């Protein structure tokens, strides 16, 4: 049995296409808009969608995603509301959905309860930036056989750890483009090709690059290095522009189309 995420990468491979993975924080600017954003991004060419669960202390995130989390929290969004959203989405779309969330959100909710709800609602993958290899053993055991991908992050500093990080990975590998938190960068690490080549030595699971890809230029620069690219903060910035002009969904949709065209 393979997850919706793996199936998507297989489909794309057959068509000789790359995956566009887009991120929004669930509940930013409100939960209904998030629902509309998922449909709109899928229609505009996003292949996999990451839904961020807002957290009070997102230490892997830069200011843009921090602001998104604050807006969602101010609206009273919590995991239960996001599970409801996923259930609703699943009646209309089969687009692969991954949660991006901090470990405390899972731990406090109850690990078993959380995983059961993910299965029940139709969540396909989990990205947990503060649950490194050393801390995921027990969590991985509980996930075993549940058909939910635990997406590992690999960083430019991982070096000798890469082999262990990608071992047993399913879905895709989240390759962190450069040091630092989420958000735009002026340039990517000059060693990024070497970094990606090094990861490829250890796994056949698809690789996706994230952190700092903020525009068409970034997409063009990196698209040949991986099977997928992840765009987050830049989409949140479009949401912020859209809030002001009251056209969130339109602006995000146009932006995702641009990214899609650049990736093809």
């Amino acid at each position, binding site marked *: 049995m393979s997850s919706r995420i793996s199936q998507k990468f297989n489909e794309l491979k057959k068509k000789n296409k790359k995956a566009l993975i887009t991120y929004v924080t669930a509940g930013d600017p409100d939960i209904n808009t998030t629902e509309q954003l998922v449909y709109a991004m899928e229609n505009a060419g996003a292949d996999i969608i990451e839904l961020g669960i807002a*957290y*009070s*202390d997102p*230490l*892997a995130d*830069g*200011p843009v995603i*921090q602001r998104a989390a604050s807006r969602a*929290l101010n609206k009273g969004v*919590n*995991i239960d509301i996001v599970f409801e959203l996923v259930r609703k989405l699943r009646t209309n779309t089969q687009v692969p959905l991954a949660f991006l969330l*901090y*470990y*405390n*959100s*899972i*731990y*406090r*909710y109850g690990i078993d309860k959380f995983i059961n709800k993910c299965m029940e609602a139709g969540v396909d993958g989990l990205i947990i*930036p*503060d*649950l*490194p*290899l*050393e*801390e995921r*053993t027990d969590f991985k055991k509980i996930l075993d056989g549940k058909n939910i991908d635990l997406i*590992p*992050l*690999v*960083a*430019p*500093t*991982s*070096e000798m*750890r890469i082999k*262990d*990080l990608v071992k047993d990975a399913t879905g895709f590998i989240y390759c*962190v483009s450069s*040091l*630092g*938190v989420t958000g735009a960068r002026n340039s990517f690490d000059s060693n990024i090709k070497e970094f990606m080549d090094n990861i490829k030595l250890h796994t056949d699971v698809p690789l996706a690059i994230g952190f700092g890809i903020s525009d068409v230029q970034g997409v063009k620069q990196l698209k040949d290095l991986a099977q997928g690219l992840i765009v987050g903060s830049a989409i949140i910035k479009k949401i912020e522009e859209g809030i002001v002009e009251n056209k969130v969904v339109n602006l995000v949709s146009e932006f995702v189309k641009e990214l899609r065209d650049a990736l093809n």
Partner: protein
Amino acid sequence: MDNKKSKRFGNYGGQYVPETLMNALIELEEMYEEAMNDEEFIKEYMYYLQEYSGRPTSLYYAENLTKKYGGGKIYLKREDLNHTGAHKINNVVGQVLLANRMGKKRIIAETGAGQHGVATATICAMFNLECEIYMGEEDIQRQGLNVFKMELLGAKVNSVTSGTKTLKDATNEAIRDWVTNVEDTYYVIGSVVGPHPYPTMVRDFQRIIGDETKIQILEKEGRMPDYLLACVGGGSNAMGLFYPFIEEDNIKIIGVEAAGEGVNTHKHAATITLGTVGVLHGMMTYLLQDDYGQILPAHSVSAGLDYPGIGPEHAYLHDSGRVEYVAITDSEAVEAFQTLSRCEGIIPALESAHALAYLAKLAPTTHKEDIIILNLSGRGDKDVHTISEILGGKKHE
């Protein structure tokens, strides 16, 4: 993976950090262990503590306070007499020497009340290292004097405006800086918190407090104390005093948390008294959090105790029952602050005043032959402004 146990105190501690930092933590752990086994390193650490910070600090018999409460003999471990006015420098000397050994030229730190920031800026000035301090905007307003001191010492103070704008958020921001600049930057954590190896390392650099106390009390009294008292925010001064005595089962050890406006209100920092288990700043420990794991704002009149978590070793010592944790309100601490000032001519830090306030409750219930040792973790110069506002406000009521 291997050694998972040594990275934890029972269920607590661990390394809940982004992958980008993992190799840095592994390297830090190795370098730290190597340094602690190197006599030259220990010699250098002791040299700066003695010659630069003025250790050993005295264990002062507070005769007036003893008479006032009419119970056991009260001794104050005078960490306030350290250079920069608090115990924080013990840890900073150790960590910056380690940074030098690792060849890191840039130092960052978080600070709440500013004591750790001042200690870090001080040691960086001495070793000619670039220093950036993260401090919550609210704390910057409460602790203007310490901000000025840090700048005077050549450090850059970054105002943190995210979240609650206090120590918790300053720590987030310092971690974000570290993730970005991990290759040339050393992060000096100021308390027994954060991912492994920090809680262990900071405790080991603070245990000098307890090690000295043990020698001093044996000299003065010829026996071990009956009670140990210390305030607990993250909990480094408390771990420093307690650790060398943990195996002495007859000693009653008490950590004093900040109850803010009261444990029945929403404005407190009583993490062990009222918290639940979760993950923050790379560690599993007791936290102030809601049902969804969102961290709740802590409150204390003292910026140094204004933290919604606690060191993982304290969480463990609480669960095992070895250490008792109690909570003291803002107003009790303010009263104790005045009592020590008038009674002994020592103006304590507001953090230490929490331990003093519990002493006022405990001491009268003890026997005359009992010995109580309280860690006076810092001096109160930085808090005089806060106290004058509180007392001034009362006069006009």
